[in-house]
């Protein structure tokens, strides 16, 4: 039987340079969780490194003592990735917040992982540049967190997902080794090409929720700031029509000037319209709205809009200017970014489950949502559908009172995830909330576990995330 090893103290962390260490219980209460409904954890210490060397030293120290380490950026993710369920150290990466280089010739910005998107966009604007993917929590979300959870949304029609915007990374492995990926793997070369030398090691760390290494620098591709922005909304009678329309737009690649595209279902449409126009009849409102935020050259937008309008018509849809006026353009002009976050209107936290689906499964996704509403009427549910270059992302947002409904809401969401998986729709941001489902993808999970064992043999990095076997770091090594 394994004998519990004494919990290694965190006091010796004190001797490390360039860190801020918190061990006071009041300080620690703020580092227990992210925006998800996953159970929080209780860290033994929070360490905020100020340099990459400090990250190296912390990991060496933790690896030696087998202390779990949970990297944390803005902690705005809804998958529980940062929740320190095995205790140990929360590594607060937000102090590594320098933009290291803006290389306009290579078209790359190199930054530390704690840089907030808001700061990045502000620094790039004077250069007439921006980045491709911006999570809707841009003011607070960090680049490192977005890469580790492959963020999506604003930018996805043009660029698919955060990962596709990464030109290369620098990562510290569990034993403290520093690794550069992409072209920067060759000493003195820097980032200019991701797919070179050999297999794409950058991809190993994208969406890995900090389980395979801690990202200490991110190279992102730059894009010129768009000359124009414009929003347009369309209404559709049913899910099949909007599905067909989205398939057509994607197939014809009319996505190059779309910054954000989202589909909204009847309850959301009704609520927004009735709030904005209390006197309007609600009976003949469309069942679905497609809202598009264009950005690009004005004449390109105009051309694309004309073509999209024709597709819409062909799919039984029509312009829906009320929705644009009441809702979508308002969010856009206020730069609220939270296009799909129903919690913004409900003034509430919600349990969120993010999934990836092929566009031709949009109506299947809506059927699952309808069933979920039927099975769990006690949790008001919102569906958020986000357009990518190819495929869609489907969010399920369930409102609950955390004081009284936390556990049961999670059980309901678990059922929803299982149903979605059975329907061929996969979890997108897995963290801890979909960890169980990840382990069900056996060949994938087994390869992931083998990589994990190689890169982090003591299992100190984010134990519990992605369903990776949670070796309890406070236990002696298991004897076979």
């Amino acid at each position, binding site marked *: 039987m394994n004998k519990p090893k004494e919990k290694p103290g965190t006091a010796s962390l004190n001797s490390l340079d360039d860190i801020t260490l918190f061990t006071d219980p009041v300080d620690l209460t*703020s580092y227990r969780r992210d925006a998800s409904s996953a159970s929080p954890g209780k860290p033994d210490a929070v360490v905020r490194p100020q340099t990459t060397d400090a990250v190296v030293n912390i990991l060496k120290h933790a690896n030696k003592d087998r202390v779990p380490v949970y990297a944390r950026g803005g902690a*705005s993710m809804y998958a529980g990735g940062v929740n320190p369920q095995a205790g140990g150290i929360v590594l*607060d990466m937000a102090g590594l917040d320098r933009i290291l280089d803006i290389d306009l010739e290579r078209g790359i910005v190199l930054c530390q992982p704690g840089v907030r998107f808001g700061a990045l966009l502000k620094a790039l604007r004077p250069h007439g540049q921006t980045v491709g993917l911006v999570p809707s929590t*841009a*003011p607070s979300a960090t680049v490192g967190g977005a890469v580790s959870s492959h963020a999506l949304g604003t930018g996805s029609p043009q660029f698919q997902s955060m990962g596709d915007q990464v030109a290369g990374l620098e990562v510290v492995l569990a034993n403290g080794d520093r690794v550069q990926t992409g072209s920067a793997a060759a000493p003195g070369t820097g980032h200019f090409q991701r797919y070179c030398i050999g297999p794409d090691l950058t991809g190993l760390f994208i969406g890995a929720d900090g389980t395979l290494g801690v990202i200490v620098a991110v190279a992102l591709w730059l894009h010129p700031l768009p000359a124009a922005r414009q929003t347009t909304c369309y209404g559709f009678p049913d899910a099949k029509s909007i599905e067909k329309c989205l398939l057509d737009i994607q197939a014809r690649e009319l996505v190059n000037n779309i910054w954000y595209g989202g589909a909204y279902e009847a309850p959301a449409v009704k609520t927004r319209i009735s709030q904005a126009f209390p006197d309007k009849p609600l009976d003949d409102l469309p069942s679905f709205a497609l809202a598009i935020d264009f950005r690009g050259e004005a004449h390109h937008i105009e051309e694309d809009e004309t073509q999209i309008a024709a597709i819409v018509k062909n799919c039984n849809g029509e312009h829906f200017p009320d929705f644009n006026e009441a809702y979508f353009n308002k969010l856009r002009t206020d730069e609220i970014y939270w296009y799909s976050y129903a919690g913004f209107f409900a*003034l509430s936290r919600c349990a969120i489950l993010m999934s990836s689906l092929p566009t031709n499964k949009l109506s299947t996704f809506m059927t699952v949502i309808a069933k979920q509403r039927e099975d769990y009427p006690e949790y008001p549910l919102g569906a958020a559908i986000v357009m990518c270059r190819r495929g869609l992302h489907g969010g399920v947002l369930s409102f609950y009172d955390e004081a009284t409904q936390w556990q049961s809401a999670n059980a309901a969401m678990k059922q929803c995830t299982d149903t979605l998986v059975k329907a061929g729709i996969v979890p997108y941001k897995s963290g801890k909330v979909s960890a169980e489902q990840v382990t069900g993808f056996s060949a994938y999970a087994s390869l992931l576990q083998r990589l994990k064992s190689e890169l982090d043999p003591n299992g100190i990095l984010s134990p519990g995330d992605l369903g990776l076997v949670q070796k309890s770091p406070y236990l002696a090594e298991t004897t076979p």
Partner: protein
Amino acid sequence: MTTPQEHPFLANFLKDLYHCSDCGYCVEAIWEERNIDHVCSTLQSHSPGLAYSGQGYISTARAWIEGEDLPLESVAEHAFTCASCGNCERICPIGMRPMAINRALRSELIARDMAPNSIVQIQENVINQQNPAGKPAVDRYNWAAGQEALNSSAADPTDIIYLPGCASAYSRPQEAQATLRLLIASGQSVQLLADNDHCCGAPLKELGFITDAGTSANQLSASLAQRHYDILLTSGCECANSLADSANPTSFVTWLSAALNDKQLSLSSKNTLPHVACIESCQATISSQAQSAGDNDNHALHQVLSGLGVTVNGGEPTSRYALCCGASGGMPSMQPASSEEMAKARINDAVAKANSADHGTLDALVSIDPRCVAHLASARADSDPPVYGLAEFIDNFFTVVTEDV
């Protein structure tokens, strides 16, 4: 695990504690479109520990309500350190109230005798000397020595009663003096409360001494009730907030703006028109209920100065999310070094922005809040531009054109 019913002091905040979405905007948000560089001055200048942030106060309160055994000395250190600027509440996209939660924590800690000594000292100062700094009560109107307004009789009606507020009266007498001069120059009759004046209770309210704050406010209201006046004018931004319900005060900037518009007062510049940066007062922003930027006294300051031809912030608008200069809340007494850091950071930021916008050197920093002015002035380096209250600034750079009055 305890139940919320066992913690009535948090009973009004269950929605906040259990529905905060943890988006993290109250910790840090950088949002160019809204002119937000950072959110929490405490995290910027004191400690990056999240327990000092809005999210931190929500987490602590929730742990408390759920019966966790938290060391109350540490809860108190965190709760009373906050500068109470309100940015965390203003930025919350879903209307959560972390600052109010922190105030509830403070009140509960006070009820349990857990308030730190430096905070209790402020309470004693207000009770014993009627001002938070503990300066002798009898010195409150030293700045007005020789002024006729000081000797007014309560029975005489007057256009204006001028309440300088504790910060002006004791720490920035220049502002009180300059204000009085301008009021008199406008041709209006002015009275001072003199011996009947004292703290309005705002600093106590901010720190969670709700009962004592109410007592102070009532005493001041009782003094005012004996007077016959049209306008109650105050320099203190937090005094204006604290008296808002009982006495409907007018801020000096609001009065000045109206006086200039109505041509009760005309000003002409002494020299070339200066280039200034406005240091926003958090208290003035807190008082504004509306969501837009153009509705509070900081904005009014910008308008008044621009109207006088002064270059303000290089043309940039005032921010609703400016970082606190460190003068408010428990910050100055709990963490004097950090409080000074915050002031320096505000000054450096204003200077850097002026330089980067290439609008030439900054001639002055101006604020409508005497508490901020006194604090900034004490932290500024010799090479920094001078810091003025609005009335002082007018006094230094403009003359009153009497024939137009």
